[in-house]
């Protein structure tokens, strides 16, 4: 199994709690994603002033070398674009632009990728470039590969589905251009069903589910390693260029991401809020305010991490109820059953039956 697919969180990075970035830290290059978003809106007849309004970003910033914007600014930009471009099309347009536009740094990578595995490896490692709001984890079980997307900096509830639309379209479009045929990707979205089902149908196919537990996409494993072209020097050059670009950007860990990893490490006995605040060098009140400004409620996040872990153990590791309950430090099975129902809305037995019916 390739190294990056292993589920091995790095414990040391989690404790480096003064290295994470918050909503107002500027690290997203304004020459790439913001410029793409402005172009997309202009293609739909929306003037750039309307897109940039309230973001603190001006036209001349696009030409300034090394100019960066914060997550909050990007979120505002996305909200403007979403509101101005109708028919729920904005995310899909961004996804296609990321995969296709000659100005996109991924455009040179996609046509030379020998296999889906090589492409996904590279996309996973440089996710900070094209997806500053969401970060990705890859898991493989004996049948499928799963890409699970989570927020990077804040819970970004308003723009989360926009990013999922864009990322799903990017992955579908780029893998399709390697294989030269559509692949049977399956998509799960945590958002409820939107009224623009036609966009999902046309851009992602008919395998989309809404109201799920996680934001994830999966593909049968047999498509991963089929070589569609040889490992050329051009691919290595493209890969090297994009890795250097990623290094130059020095993508920091987001606050949400850090919190998530911190809790994932302590899943057996999640610390109370005050203790967690101490680990993050903050007083409980400051810590609470900080969480709130990033759209996080501590107990909700603890439950979410537990829920995601139990789903991971059931679906990917194939563990049984007792093993999962023990791993999450539940001594009493009925207690675990009740908690699981509270997190997911289903009892563990129902959940396993649903997984089996999905397969």
């Amino acid at each position: 199994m390739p190294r990056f697919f292993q589920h091995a969180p790095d414990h040391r990075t989690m404790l480096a709690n003064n290295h994470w970035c918050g909503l107002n830290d500027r690290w997203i290059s304004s020459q790439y994603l913001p410029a793409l978003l402005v172009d997309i809106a202009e293609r739909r007849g929306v003037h750039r002033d309307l897109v940039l309004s309230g973001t603190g970003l001006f036209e001349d910033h696009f030409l300034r070398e090394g100019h960066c914007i914060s997550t909050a600014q990007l979120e505002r930009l996305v909200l403007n674009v979403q509101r101005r471009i109708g028919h729920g099309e904005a995310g899909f347009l961004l996804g296609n632009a990321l995969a296709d536009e000659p100005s996109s740094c991924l455009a040179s990578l996609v046509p030379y990728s020998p296999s889906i595995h090589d492409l996904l490896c590279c996309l996973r490692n440089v996710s900070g470039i094209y997806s500053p709001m969401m970060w990705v984890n890859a898991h493989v079980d004996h049948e499928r590969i799963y890409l699970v997307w989570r927020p990077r900096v804040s819970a970004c509830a308003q723009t989360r589905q926009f990013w999922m639309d864009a990322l799903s379209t990017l992955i579908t479009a780029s893998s399709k251009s390697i294989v030269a045929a559509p692949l049977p990707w399956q998509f799960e979205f945590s958002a409820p069903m939107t009224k623009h089902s036609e966009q999902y149908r046309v851009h992602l196919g008919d395998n989309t589910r809404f109201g799920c537990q996680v934001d994830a996409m999966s593909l049968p494993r047999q498509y991963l390693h089929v070589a569609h072209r040889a490992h050329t020097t051009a691919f290595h050059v493209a890969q090297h260029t994009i890795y250097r670009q990623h290094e130059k950007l020095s993508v920091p860990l987001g606050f949400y991401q850090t919190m998530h990893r911190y809790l994932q490490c302590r899943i057996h006995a999640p610390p109370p809020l005050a203790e967690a605040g101490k680990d993050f060098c903050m007083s409980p009140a400051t810590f609470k305010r900080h969480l709130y400004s990033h759209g996080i409620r501590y107990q909700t996040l603890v439950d979410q991490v537990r829920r995601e872990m139990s789903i991971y153990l059931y679906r990917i590791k194939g563990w049984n109820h007792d093993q999962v309950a023990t791993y999450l430090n539940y001594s009493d099975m009925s207690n675990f059953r009740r908690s699981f129902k509270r997190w997911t809305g289903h009892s563990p037995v129902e959940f396993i039956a649903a997984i089996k019916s999905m397969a």
Partner: protein
Amino acid sequence: MTLFHICHPCVMLRSHSVWTETHSESPKVLSNHQKGLGVAILALTQLLLCLMTGEVKLWADIDWMDIVGEGGAAIFSLSWIVLILSSRPTGPVTNYLMGGLVLIFASTWQDFLDEVTHLPETLNWGSSLESIAMPLGIIVLTIGLYQWRNEQLAIRQQLLKRERLFRNHHLIDWVTQVGGADYLRRQLSIAMQSAQSHSQPTSLLLLDLDDFAHFNHRYGAREGDRLLHELGELLMLNLRRNDILCRYAGDRYAAILPSTDARSAALVAEQLQLAVAHFAFHLGEQADAYFPRATIGAATLSQMNPTALEERANRSLEWKKRCRDSFNTLQTTEPC
């Protein structure tokens, strides 16, 4: 100039052409900016005249309710003028609407000025302006609205196959200028309802461009948008009078064929496919052209169930695309 010269048809023709030329060279049409400036000058003139001929009322004499009511009316009529000027092309209908609204504005503005200034009894031109401008303005506005109605009827002829019975500009797709998926769903339920009352089936065609992503990658997304727009015009020409064309999503178009059975729908689909196959899309000024190809899925249903019809059309389209893909791989892998 002799009588011969005047009566000779050549001279008349020439003089006529000279007249039209000079007319077209200096069209005396005021731009919307100039009209807006005119309104501002009018409002300022009224204000200055009031200040020059009358005197400002004392604070205690001002009735604030009247200020709010009449000032509000003036502001709103001014905002209508701005809306008309910013949205409509120049022409007779705009002039009538503008003229009517300017008169109404002049009257309400004067009304407002009367509340804050006191004109002498002997020189009370303000009240006469008020009483003449308002009815005149309403008459001119009514004429303008009547002309606007006739203009709308003419435009509706141009919008045939794009809309029927129901209009909502929020539902229009910007790239192709036809209705989007929401408009399609509304029209589909209207069409199915009326077809069901005559116990006739309704058909839906979904048309998808082949290799559109490849086209976008090669020529850029802006050219892709232009292709979609021109394809829409082409499809519209090849549909029947009662059919409606909408943009479904991405590169997928939808055509509602009301009161059409499966056989006729297949015929229309074939005609559309032929039309697309012969469509030369020119890239910029080049003589070379791109010939797009399309795959069409069709579905027909007699019961009133728009969602099921949409789902069936989608499935039919996806099935045809899969068949086409496997046929293509068969062709490339089989030795000749």
